[in-house]
């Protein structure tokens, strides 16, 4: 029973990544796309952690940690480029 609920939850999370990618495609301005990138990144962290649960391996949580820090740096660099240049 619990496994089915986790499965459904993962399906909904994948759907929300798809919806945020819709905003990435549509735009219209570049900050919109940066926000969509940020949202997709943060939702992906949860996907990775839930996958770590279903495969039962702790090492996958490390991927989520690395991902969280580096997607933050990507957003920071993009915003800095838009703001006044690196």
């Amino acid at each position, binding site marked *: 029973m*619990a496994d089915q*609920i986790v499965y*459904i939850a993962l399906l909904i999370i994948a*759907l929300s990544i798809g919806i945020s990618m819709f*905003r990435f495609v549509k735009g219209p301005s570049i900050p919109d796309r940066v*926000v969509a990138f940020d949202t997709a990144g943060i939702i992906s962290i949860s996907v990775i952690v839930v996958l770590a649960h279903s495969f039962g391996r*702790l090492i996958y949580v490390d991927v989520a940690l690395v991902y969280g820090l580096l997607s933050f740096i990507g*957003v920071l660099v993009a915003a800095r480029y838009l703001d006044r240049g690196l």
Partner: protein
Amino acid sequence: MEMTGAILLLLASIVFLVSALGLVRMPDVYNRIQTSTKATTLGTILAMAAVAFLHPDWTPKLALVVLFILLTNPISSHVVARAAYFKRVKLSDRTVEDQLKDKLEG
């Protein structure tokens, strides 16, 4: 124990779904940042709590993920909002007042 974790995870997924919907439905960048940041922060906290219920021995590492999210998420949304404002991305028509513009011009 397992059912608690699974239900928390379902709640987290609904929060994520609403944040993605907000990203599509809101009229301008600033409101999109509002919905996406807040909802993804709570969603991540709920998802980590859910996995902590499912695997109690992983709790310290999941707490670290939550700590990083709480530190980085407001800063990235702040930075994007600032960049959008100084790139002169238009506020939506429904905006009531803009005191930052008065300050920069006046």
